């Protein structure tokens, strides 16, 4: 269930071909009980916990991170509003990196496996997560989806998150890079309206640049707003459809890949 909007109560998350009952936890969680002020016996007592509700997801995310690193994978978490062009962006990225980097995708939506089907017809290994009513992917869902993939055959694992600029910001999935997409038709002040998501992103991609003039897109203002909320993010402007601007993004990914590999190499000494 989403801690922010409360969605997902009683929903059934479906990962790939398997339906997982809501709330089923097949892993025996060894919770270190931080119990302070603990008294045995009857009577009212207050137990101090001071524990974040995100603890469990954060822990699973770090477990994912370690696992993906051992598999020498570069992992991307692609986030955006619905309709910014995530699926097309991923499909074109995979197509243009063919022969250089092998991409696999985990895609999340509330319903349908349409995105997975689109990617599959392009020859990309993909697992679809249908969340039912949950508005974001979490580390547990990603771990379960990854189990259904042959990760040894991949160089890059792309996670296409549920289209939502709010709740996914707080759910670490174990990714290396969080990539936020913003299309030219969405308005220049989008970054100002959704600070947590844009601030948490390592990369910001302005998509559908081929529609910029038709949309009356104010490029300078958009870039200024992006830099204001996320001064550290690397910015790319492109059109996945026409290919304009894609080279800079692809070169960037190719540069990241050796970094993912060398992290494991260092440990081997």
């Amino acid at each position, binding site marked *: 269930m989403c801690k922010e909007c409360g969605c997902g109560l009683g929903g059934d998350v479906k990962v790939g071909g398997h339906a997982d009952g809501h709330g089923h936890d097949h892993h025996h969680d060894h919770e270190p009980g931080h119990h302070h002020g*603990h008294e045995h016996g009857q009577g009212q*007592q207050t137990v101090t*916990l001071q524990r974040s*509700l995100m603890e469990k997801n954060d822990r699973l995310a770090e477990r994912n991170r370690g696992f993906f690193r051992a598999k020498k994978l570069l992992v991307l978490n692609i986030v955006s509003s619905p309709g910014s062009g995530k699926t097309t962006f991923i499909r074109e990225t995979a197509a243009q990196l063919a022969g250089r980097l092998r991409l696999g995708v985990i895609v999340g939506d509330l319903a349908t496996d349409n995105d997975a089907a689109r990617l599959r017809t392009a020859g990309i290994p993909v697992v679809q997560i249908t969340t039912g009513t949950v508005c974001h992917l979490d580390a547990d869902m990603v771990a379960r989806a990854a189990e259904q993939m042959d990760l040894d055959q991949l160089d890059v694992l792309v996670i296409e998150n549920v289209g939502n600029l709010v709740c996914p910001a707080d759910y670490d999935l174990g990714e290396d890079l969080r990539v936020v997409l913003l299309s030219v038709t969405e308005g220049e002040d989008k970054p100002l309206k959704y600070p*947590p998501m844009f601030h948490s992103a390592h990369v910001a991609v302005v998509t559908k640049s081929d529609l910029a003039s038709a949309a009356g897109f104010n490029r300078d203002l958009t870039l200024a707003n992006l830099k204001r*909320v996320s001064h550290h993010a690397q910015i790319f402007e492109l059109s996945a459809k026409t290919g304009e601007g894609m080279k800079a993004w692809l070169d960037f990914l190719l540069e990241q890949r050796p970094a993912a590999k060398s992290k494991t190499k260092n440990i081997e000494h």
Partner: protein
Amino acid sequence: MEEAVRMAVETAKAAQASRVVKLHLRVGTLSAVVPEAMQFAFDVVCRDTIAEGATLEMETVAAACWCPECRAEFECAEFISECPRCHNLSGELRRGRELEIASVEVS
């Protein structure tokens, strides 16, 4: 909220208590939590558990931003705020995004 109730129930059991009486949450003002939604979700999730009927108490934590120029914190109401001293913009939140269980009252 499921996590919160799960932790509360676990705590009660570990303390050999039979009920959760109260859940005390610390919620940052910029945590994107809607108190009414939280209360509603709490009531639903507690049903058929030993936390059913428990009171939910929410303590708010005021947001504070860090100004790298002044090297000091200042209270803020938004994600990107102007430092009251030097007027530079800062987006480095130090407090205000908490969502934690502070304590659980059991009996």
